[in-house]
C-alpha cells in the first residue's frame, strides 16, 4: 500500500474545474515530483491534499485512511505538512516564534525545544538570526525558515510548493541540497516545481500535470530524457 494515495480527484474553484481526475501515489521514503506550467494545477493538488481545498470527487488516502472528513488543521496532526508557495512566513514574528508556530499541534515543550535546536543545526543561518523578525530575512533565509517551520511538526510527508521560486541560483542549489538531506533522514516528500530539471534530478518518480490533468507519469530518469518534458519544461528544442 502506498503511503499517500490521491485517487481520481476532481476539485473546483467555484465553477472552474481545476483538477480533472488526478491520481498520484507516493511510497514511504520517496521523493516524488509534480511538474507543470503556470496554472496547471500543481498548487491546487497540494492544497487538496493538505485539506485547504476539498475535492468534489475522488479520495485522498494516507496509509489507507480517507482524509475527506478531516479539516485542514486536523490533517496536520495526521502527519502531512505543507510548505506553501511563496514561503509565506509570519513576517511579524521572530524566527524562533515562527518555528514555535510550526509545532502548534505539539504540546510537549521539551520536544518543541529539541526540535527547534534540530532545525537550527540544519539551518545554522537561522540560528544566527533566531531573535530577528522574520519579515526582515532575505528570500533564501525565509525559504529555510518556511521549511524549518514545516519540519517542526515532525511530518511523515512534506509537501513542498515551489521552494525555488524567486531565489537566486546559488540559493536554489542550497534548497535542493536541503531536500536531499531531508530525504536521507527519511522524510517522504512531494515536490511541486517549475524548475523541472532540478526537481527530476532529486526525485525518484515524477508526474507531469497539464490543465488539471496528469498527462505523464514515469520514473525521473526517463522523464528527464522525455522529449515532451525537455521541450515544454526545460526550454530545449
Amino acid at each position, binding site marked *: 500500500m502506498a503511503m499517500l494515495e490521491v485517487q481520481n480527484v476532481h476539485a473546483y474553484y467555484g465553477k472552474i474545474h481545476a483538477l480533472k481526475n488526478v491520481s498520484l501515489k507516493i511510497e514511504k521514503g520517496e521523493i516524488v515530483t509534480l511538474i507543470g506550467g503556470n496554472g496547471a494545477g500543481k498548487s491546487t493538488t497540494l492544497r487538496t491534499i*493538505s*485539506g*485547504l481545498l476539498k475535492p468534489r470527487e475522488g479520495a485522498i488516502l494516507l496509509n489507507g485512511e480517507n482524509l475527506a472528513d478531516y*479539516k*485542514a*488543521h*486536523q490533517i*496536520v*496532526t495526521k502527519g502531512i*505538512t*505543507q510548505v*506553501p508557495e511563496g514561503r*509565506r512566513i*509570519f*513576517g*511579524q*514574528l*521572530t524566527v524562533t*516564534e515562527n518555528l*514555535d*508556530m*510550526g509545532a*502548534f*499541534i505539539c504540546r510537549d515543550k521539551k520536544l518543541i525545544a529539541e526540535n527547534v535546536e534540530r532545525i537550527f543545526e540544519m539551518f545554522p543561518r537561522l540560528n544566527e538570526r533566531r531573535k*530577528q*523578525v522574520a*519579515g*526582515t*530575512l*532575505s*528570500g*533564501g*533565509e525565509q525559504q529555510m525558515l518556511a521549511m524549518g*517551520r514545516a519540519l517542526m*511538526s515532525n511530518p511523515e510527508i512534506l509537501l513542498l510548493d515551489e521552494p525555488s521560486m524567486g531565489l*537566486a541560483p*546559488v*540559493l536554489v542549489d542550497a534548497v535542493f541540497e536541503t531536500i536531499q538531506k531531508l530525504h536521507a533522514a527519511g522524510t517522504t516528500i512531494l515536490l511541486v516545481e517549475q524548475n523541472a530539471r532540478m526537481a527530476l534530478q532529486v526525485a525518484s518518480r515524477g508526474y507531469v500535470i497539464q490543465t488539471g490533468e496528469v498527462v505523464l507519469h514515469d520514473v525521473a530518469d526517463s522523464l528527464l530524457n522525455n522529449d515532451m518534458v525537455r521541450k515544454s519544461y526545460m526550454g530545449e528544442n
Partner: protein
Amino acid sequence: MTLAQSLWREGIKTGAIGGISVLAISLVGMVESFNKRDIIADFLSMGIAFIMVFGIILPYIAAKRTTRPEKHIIFLNALTAGLVTAVFPALLVILGNIINLRSMFVNASPVLYNLLTSGVEGVGGILILLLAGILCGAFAGLLFFLPGLIRSVIIVCLTSILAVGIVQDLIRPLFSSWGIMEVVSEWLFTQNGLTIAGTIFIPIFVGAIYMFWQLKGEGIKTRYNTLESGTQKSVKMSSFFVLAIFLIFLPHILGLFLSEVLTIVGLYILLGLGLNIVVGYAGLLDLGYVAFYAIGAYIAAILTSPAIGAFTLTFWQALPFAVMGGIFAGILLGIPVLKMRGDYLAIATLGFGEIIRILVLSDFLKPWLGGAQGIAKIPNPAIFGWQLSTPQEIYYLILLGCILVVFISVRLRDSRLGRAWMAMREDEDVAQAMGINLVSTKLLAFATGAGFSALSGAIMVSKIGSVYPHSFNVFISINIVCLIIVGGIGSIPGVIVGAAALVGLPELLREFADYRMLVYGAVLVGMMLLRPEGLWPEARHKMELHGEENGSDETQTATAA
C-alpha cells in the same frame, strides 16, 4: 525658471501646505474660538499659537526636505515656506476686505481678519502678517542648523509652554487645594494664561529635566542593567509599589472633575483592550464593537434597575450575566462572519452594531428595554456596603477592572492562543496548515473582546445610573478603533496612551469639542504619515516598520546572498 523651481520647490510646496492648513483652521472657526484663551496672558492667545505651530513646523519640514547641500539655500527654503504660509491668510484678508465671504464661509469675519493682522488696519496689517511668516520661517531655519541636543531641548521647552498653557485651567485648581502651592500657582498663572514668570520658569524646569535625562539617561539605564538580578527585581517591585500608591491616591489629588475624566478614560481603556484582542491580535477589523458595550450595559441595567422591575439584582450579581451575555453575543456575531476578512468583515460588523442600537431604540422592545427613554434608576455598585457613587469612588472599580483586563491581555498575548491569533492575523491559510483551528480561534477572539466590552458597559451604566440607546452610536466604535491605531496596534500600553490622548484630552479641552472629528481626522492622517506604528508601539511592529533603518547589515546580506 526651472532652476528657481528646483531651488525653491520645497519651500513653496511645503509653504502652500502650511498656508492651506492655516486657511482651513481659520475658516472652520478654530482660530477664532481658540483665541478666547491665552497661552501667555495678554501676549499670546491659543489661536495665534496654533497658527504659529504651522508657521514653524512646515518651514522646518521644508528645510529638512531640501536636497541641496548649500546652507543658505536650505535656510532660504525655510524662509520661503514661512512666507508662503503667511501669504495664504494674507490673501484671505485682502479678498475678505474687497468682497464679503461670509455667505460662503461663516467664520470669515472682520474679527478673524483683525486677529490675523494683529489689529492693524490696511497694508500695515498685511505686512505684519507676512513678516511674522518670515520670522517663523527664519526661526525654523535656525532651529534646523542647531545641534541635535540643543534643538530638541528648545522644542521640548516650547512644547511645554504650549502644553501647560492649554491645560492651565486644570492645573490651577490642583495647586489651589495644596495650601502653599497656591502661592506658586499665583506666581505662574493668571486667570487666563501664564504669567511672564511662568513663561520663563516652566520651560526652564521642563527643559532641565529633559536635558538631564538626555545626558544621564543612558548611564542610568546601563547602571540598572548591570545591577544584580535580585536588586533589579527589588527596584522593579518598589517602582510597582510607588505606582500602586500613586494610582490609589490619584483621584484625591485630581479632584472631582478630573476623576470623572479619568473614569471615562478607564472605561475606554477597557473597551480598547477588548478591541485590541480582536483587531490587534487576531487582525479582525470589527466596526460594530459598540454593540457588545450596549449589550453589557443593557443586561446590567435590566437586571439591576427597579424601573424595569423584572429583577433587582445588585451590581455584582448582574455583572457575570452582563459579561456572559457579551461573550455569547460575540460568538453569535462571529459565526456568520467566520469566512469574512478585511473590508467585508468591517462592513458586516458595522451593520451588527447598528442593528443592536436600532433594536434597543425600537418600540417593539420598549416594555423591556425602555425604548428611546432608556432605563433609569440603576443602582451604584457597592463593595461591602460601601456605595460607590462619586466618580472618585467609581474610579477604584474601574481601576480594578483595568488591572484585571490588562493582566488577562498580557497572559493571552503570551499564550498558545495569542500565538494562534497572531498567526491567523498574518496568514489564515498557513495558520490552518500549521494545525490552528480557525473557527474556534476566531470565535475566541470575538468572545474575549466582547466580554471586555460588556464589562465596560456594565460598569458604565452603574456609574451613570441610566442608559440610553443614543449613547451607543457608531462613533464609539470608530473612536475605539482610532485610539488603538493612535496608541499602536496590538500594544497594551498603546491602548492606555491612545485612550488618554483621544478620550482624555478632548474631555479636558472643551474648546476642541466642536472640532473633535476634524482633529481626529488630522491626527490619524498625521500619525499614518509620521508614526505609523503608533504612540507606544508593540516592539515587534516597530521593528518591522523600521527594520531597514537599523538593520542595514541584513539588507546587505540579503543582496549579497
